[in-house]
């Protein structure tokens, strides 16, 4: 205002002031129109005219400086603009001072109308598919038993009620965190993206459900939004999409890790049935205990069998004892036999010895000696007999011849003394001589008295 009152403006000053005014006034605006005169110079920026039945305005969409199509960069259309396409654009009004022209500098554009929307949907789907965003390999497994389920949906209405009640019914202890978003309208996609970010920031969410009831293609636009698709794909938390009804597939559905036909189905997919799990677990527990015990039992049986088969050597020992005894007895009987055989032989030999011994000779010799003795005696006695006989004969003969026989008839023989000479002549004697006279029986001595010579 101060400047306006200071006087005359240069064109440049004017254009600058218009520019300032317009840019402040139309800093952020939404405009809907039809694309025409679409040009894409080598710079890569898009130039076109946005028009309706009565009017038209020039528009430009600058290529993002990084060249990427990250959804945080607002400048990028998520679909290819085509001639005649109806779009809803967001941007601001800018004045190009050198020419004194104004135009829209757009940072986003959304298709409008069924045709455009369908077209954009297909374009986006093809592009993201080509990028590999829907690659099954990228899909994260849905946790079997989440502790906390994040639900991104409208906080009012049947969808969230259904999800909560199904989750509670199936698994009473599961927690639910609801991130409230609008599920349709221009800001819905942005809210959804924010909700994803919040959920990740909040932490502790095991699975996310992005849910919405069914609707027209236009109603579902946020779920076909590239930013939503990308935030789903980039989510580190597994995402179950549950948008619309069974036949409707949104880009979000393709990007999600799992697509549920309905929100209720999503809840069922996210939350397992606790009773079923308990049953399964207790089944496993039972089988575990059974298998453990069976193994023990089997091993016990095995061991018992082995123990049964473990041969006690006592039988072997008993056998050995028998054969040992047998041998011992055989040995004993053999040695006894041996000794007794010799014992039988020895007395026989002893008997033979005694019989052959000197006693026989002694007995037979004794009579021989007796006989010889007898013969000896006989011989000597015979000798004596013979000798006596011979002697007796001579003695008898001598007796018969004895000169003394006459003496029996009374004769006597006179003998001198002491010479004993037979006296035949008396003169051999002298008186006084003694003489001896032998008569038949005896002798006598006498003295000569007188001699009578003849």
């Amino acid at each position, binding site marked *: 205002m101060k400047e306006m009152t200071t006087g005359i403006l240069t064109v440049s000053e004017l254009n600058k002031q218009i520019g300032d005014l317009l840019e402040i006034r139309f800093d952020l605006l939404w405009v809907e129109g039809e694309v025409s005169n679409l040009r894409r110079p080598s710079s890569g920026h898009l130039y076109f005219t946005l028009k309706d039945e009565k009017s038209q305005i020039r528009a430009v969409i600058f290529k993002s400086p990084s060249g990427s199509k990250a959804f945080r960069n607002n400048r990028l259309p998520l679909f290819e603009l085509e001639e005649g396409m109806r779009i809803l654009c967001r941007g601001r009004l800018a004045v190009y001072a050198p020419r004194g022209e104004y135009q829209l500098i757009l940072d986003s554009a959304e298709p409008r109308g069924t045709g455009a929307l369908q077209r954009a949907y297909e374009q986006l789907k093809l592009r993201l598919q080509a990028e590999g965003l829907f690659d099954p390999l990228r899909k994260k497994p849905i*946790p*079997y*038993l989440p*502790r906390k389920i*994040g639900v991104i949906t409208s*906080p*009012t209405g049947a969808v*969230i*009620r259904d999800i*909560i*009640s199904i989750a*509670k019914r199936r698994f*009473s*202890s*599961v*927690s*639910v*965190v*609801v*991130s*409230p978003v609008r599920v349709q309208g221009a800001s819905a996609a942005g809210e959804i993206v*924010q*909700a994803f970010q*919040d*959920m990740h*920031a*909040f932490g502790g969410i095991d699975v996310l459900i992005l849910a919405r009831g069914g609707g027209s293609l236009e109603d579902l636009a946020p779920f076909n939004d590239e930013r939503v698709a990308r935030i789903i794909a980039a989510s580190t938390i597994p995402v179950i999409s549950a948008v619309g009804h069974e036949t409707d597939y949104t880009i979000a559905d393709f990007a999600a890790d799992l697509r549920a036909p309905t929100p209720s189905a999503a809840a069922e997919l996210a939350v397992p049935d*606790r009773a079923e*799990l*308990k049953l*399964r*677990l207790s089944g*496993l*527990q039972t*089988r*575990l205990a059974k*298998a*453990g015990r*069976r*193994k*023990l039992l*089997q*091993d016990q049986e095995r061991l018992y069998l082995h123990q049964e088969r473990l041969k006690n050597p006592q039988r072997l020992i008993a056998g050995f004892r028998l054969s040992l005894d047998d041998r011992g007895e055989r040995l004993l009987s053999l040695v006894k036999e041996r000794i007794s055989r010799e014992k039988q032989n020895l007395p026989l030999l002893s008997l033979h010895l005694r019989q052959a011994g000197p006693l026989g000779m002694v007995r037979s010799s004794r009579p021989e000696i007796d006989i010889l003795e007898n013969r000896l005696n006989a011989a000597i006695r015979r000798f004596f007999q013979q000798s006596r006989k011979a002697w007796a004969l001579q003695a008898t003969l001598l007796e018969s011849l004895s000169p003394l026989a006459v003496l029996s008839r009374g004769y006597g023989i006179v003998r001198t003394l002491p010479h004993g000479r037979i006296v035949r002549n008396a003169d051999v004697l002298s008186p006084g001589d003694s003489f001896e006279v032998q008569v038949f029986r005896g002798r006598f001595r006498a003295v000569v008295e007188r001699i009578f010579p003849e």
Partner: protein
Amino acid sequence: MAKEKFEEAMAKLEALVRKMEAGEMTLEESLKAFEEGVRLSRLCANRLDEAERRVELLVRESQQLTVQPFPEHGGKDES
């Protein structure tokens, strides 16, 4: 324990039980498997028996995230 996910624990438990039932383990392996099975089973059971349950609304207040009870639905849930 907290790190081991329920489904992993269940899967392990199931595999373990199946392996034990196949009966080609040694006693020691069997025992270890059994012990592990009991541990897994307990873990799973604990998990199933966890009592905490909340339904909350995540709200963003001046760049800070907080949770509030989800009141509307609480009343609805009881019905």
